[in-house]
């Protein structure tokens, strides 16, 4: 029913980001992405979003509702697009020293803020220093940064404590938009009035913010890059999924954050009117086991559950078959790092029960080997029912606890659970999967600790050659197959329709008439209306 229910579920920021970006999935291009004809300038583009941005400060807090907007108002050093490639933004180029300990960014010259002040390396240093010092939302990904130097106005040097292959991905991700030092210095980032009236260097600038209703942006004539083709982009708030979808169907809005999956088959018949975005994200939905205490602390139980869960059924009944059943211990998207020998176990209830029997578990008078509580997240009734039925078949009585995100996180983060449901962006590169697996890793909610796995990730983190990195991650999967701390269920596939008159959208590659190769995730610079 609700295509993008994960935003409401709050499974993770990444999932929400997919929602935020609305139509900005896209790696697989569209069926009728459209041959770009004569580019038409002008027009208003309206996006129906599920919630209102609370601030237009892009770095201070995590705000699922402002990501799509701030990408158009500010610039980063580099920016990630829907092809997951980092593209030059404020920086024209960068160099990495041979030992991987020094990143030197060369900024574009002549960049000015929307208030006319010049944007220099001082702004970059100020922004990063503050993010790290004040522990703003994305500070943690920069713990490898030692010092930042600015030898001149157009050069920024990051000296690292350790080599960090994820660094460029993190720089180009969110929460790293460069803020104007002359506006923010000496003020509280959370309350600065510029949060409502931003001064940026992005392709657009704020025109109106009608609280509770809409945010409107118009081209920034000071922008250093190509001028936007649209006259105006409006983000209008439609909190209800069905209303938003109806509003889109009726043509009141051009793009929606919500679609009704069950109606896709009907829409697909009209190949003239719609083009389709399909994109795989490195954000599987998975089951996380508490490896430290409770019944799932026994690896045999985890292996039995993994063998007794029908991922294909979860995909079909829980996601209308759109999100594919997972096959590997790491996201489907990182195919070069897949270990074909150590994949997720095939569905086999008889084998699952045998694992339990072999481990010494006996059925009680009710016919169950185990009674386990499953800490789930509200909004996934179909998924929960499939999992419960699967477990019933192998003699595990599953009690389902469906919780709001905040309550869920209060239970799962400190390890007060047995088996839980979660999601999350595991990128921007394959090494970042380690955050969920290494001892004391930031998102290691399974509290898994295996010195061998730690060592492999440590090596991978220091390894500049992607091919060698992949080999190390393949090795990791051997241990994961034995220990099963996390169990991927479905990989995150976004599929959504878009009106064919929309051209130059960042969700489509340039060969399909889009702008994926040059624009950020939700950057509207190259979007134009062929109508």
């Amino acid at each position, binding site marked *: 029913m609700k295509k993008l229910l994960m935003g409401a579920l709050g499974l*993770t920021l990444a999932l929400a980001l997919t929602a935020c970006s609305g139509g900005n999935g896209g790696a697989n291009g569209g069926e009728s992405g459209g041959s770009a004809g004569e580019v038409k300038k002008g027009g208003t583009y309206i996006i129906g979003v599920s919630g209102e941005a609370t601030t237009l400060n892009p770095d201070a807090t*995590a705000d699922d509702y402002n990501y799509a907007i701030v990408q158009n108002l500010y610039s980063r050093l580099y920016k990630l697009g829907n092809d997951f490639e980092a593209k030059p933004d404020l920086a024209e180029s960068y160099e990495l020293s041979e030992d991987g300990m020094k990143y030197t960014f060369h900024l574009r010259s002549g960049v000015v803020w929307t208030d006319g002040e010049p944007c220099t390396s001082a702004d970059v240093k100020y922004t990063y220093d503050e993010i790290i010092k004040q522990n703003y*939302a*994305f500070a943690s*990904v920069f713990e490898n940064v030692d010092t930042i130097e600015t030898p001149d106005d157009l050069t920024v040097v990051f000296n690292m404590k350790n080599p960090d292959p994820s660094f460029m991905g993190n720089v180009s991700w969110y929460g790293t938009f460069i803020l104007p030092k002359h506006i923010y210095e000496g003020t509280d980032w*959370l309350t600065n009035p510029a949060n409502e009236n931003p001064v940026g260097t992005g392709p657009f600038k704020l025109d109106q913010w009608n609280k509770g209703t809409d945010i409107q942006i118009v081209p920034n004539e000071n922008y250093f890059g190509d001028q936007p083709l649209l006259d105006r982009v409006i983000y209008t*708030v439609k909190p209800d999924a*069905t*209303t938003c979808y109806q509003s889109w169907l009726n043509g009141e809005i051009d793009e929606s954050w919500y679609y009704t999956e069950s109606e896709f088959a009907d829409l697909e018949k009209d190949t003239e009117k719609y083009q389709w975005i399909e994109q795989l994200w490195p954000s599987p939905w998975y089951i996380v086991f508490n490896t430290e205490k409770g019944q799932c602390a026994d690896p045999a139980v985890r292996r039995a559950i993994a063998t007794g869960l029908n991922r294909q059924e979860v995909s079909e009944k829980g996601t209308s078959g759109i999100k594919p059943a997972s096959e590997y211990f790491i996201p489907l998207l990182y195919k070069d790092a897949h270990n074909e020998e150590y994949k997720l176990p095939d569905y086999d209830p008889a084998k699952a029960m045998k694992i339990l029997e072999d481990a010494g578990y006996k059925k009680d008078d009710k016919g169950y080997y185990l009674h386990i509580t499953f800490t789930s997240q509200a909004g996934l009734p179909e998924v929960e029912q499939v999992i419960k039925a699967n477990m019933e078949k192998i003699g595990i009585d599953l009690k389902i606890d469906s919780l709001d995100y905040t309550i869920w996180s209060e239970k799962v983060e400190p390890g007060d659970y047995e088996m839980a449901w979660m999601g999350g962006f595991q990128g921007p590169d394959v090494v970042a999967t380690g955050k969920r697996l290494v001892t004391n890793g*930031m998102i290691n909610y399974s509290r898994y600790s295996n010195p061998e796995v730690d060592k492999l990730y440590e090596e991978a983190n220091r390894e500049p050659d992607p091919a060698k990195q992949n080999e190390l991650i393949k090795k990791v999967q051997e241990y994961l197959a034995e220990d099963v701390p996390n169990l991927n269920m479905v990989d995150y596939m976004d599929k959504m329709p878009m009106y064919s008159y929309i051209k130059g959208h960042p969700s489509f590659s340039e060969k399909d008439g889009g702008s994926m190769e040059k624009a950020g995730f939700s950057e509207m610079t190259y979007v134009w209306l062929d109508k």
Partner: protein
Amino acid sequence: MKQYIWKRVLTGALVVLFSVLFNFVLMRLAPGDPTRLLAGKENPNPATILALQERYGLNKPIMVQFVLYIKQLLHGDFGFSYVSNRPVLTIIGERFGATILLAVVGLIIEITVGILLGVHAAQHQGSKFDTILNGISYFFDSTPAFWLGLMIILLFSSTLHLLPTSGMYNVRENYQGFRRVLDVGYHMILPTLTMVVLNIPYYFRITRSSVMETMNEDYIMTLRSTGMPEKQIFRKYVLRNALLPIITVVGITMAYMITGVAFIEIVFAWPGMGRLMLNSITTRDYPVLSGIYLLLSISVAVMMIVVDVVYAYADPRIRYED
């Protein structure tokens, strides 16, 4: 009468104070920590969470937080939203007008139509009109606002293409001046219709039963036996007495109109306070929620006082009892 009013005001003040305390404690005891959402779901950096808890004083004991909050309130300061860091009063102020507009227009229509239908049905008790209306009223009384709103959108917007699905105005055209007023009116039709259809049954049934009850009172029987024309009895004696309980009902619904329209605001993307309240619950934005609850409890208290006073004027028995 003066004493009567003072008593009511005092009770009202106590109601407000207790509801502020109750809401404050309840909110903080409920599971869910706002700083976890602010720190981001992707990289919930413990240091960020601690820094935010320190900033908002959430690491202090609840009663200390409460005393600080009351002190703040006494200075007329409602605090700042955790989520947007803007003043609570400003945030509520931005949303207040939209809710009042929708609620007041809806209220006027539903009270008028509800009472008229109720009186008519009571007068023609047992008639076809009465039976049908009764059935319809039970149907809509048990209909969820969400469902009805969506059905109305599907019918009037998606099928008939007569009216816009949602929003307060046409963002594409962004009309100004008088055209803006017309545009808002145009966008109000569907949410108002939903609200009115859902609430008319309430007024209808209360009026109907109240009128019927009064018609069976002994004094009406006595009047009838004097040979007074039925129309005169109805207008002069039945209506006046029957409408008394409706005053209470109207007063109470007016006080609850913010919560009453919350779901309608969500379905129709109406930028009102009800939606703000539900959002703030999801994000655990305590200061905004406290602000809204304070406003709600004040409006409930004020409406109770107003109702009591109006009641006392309308019915001298109440004044004298006091």
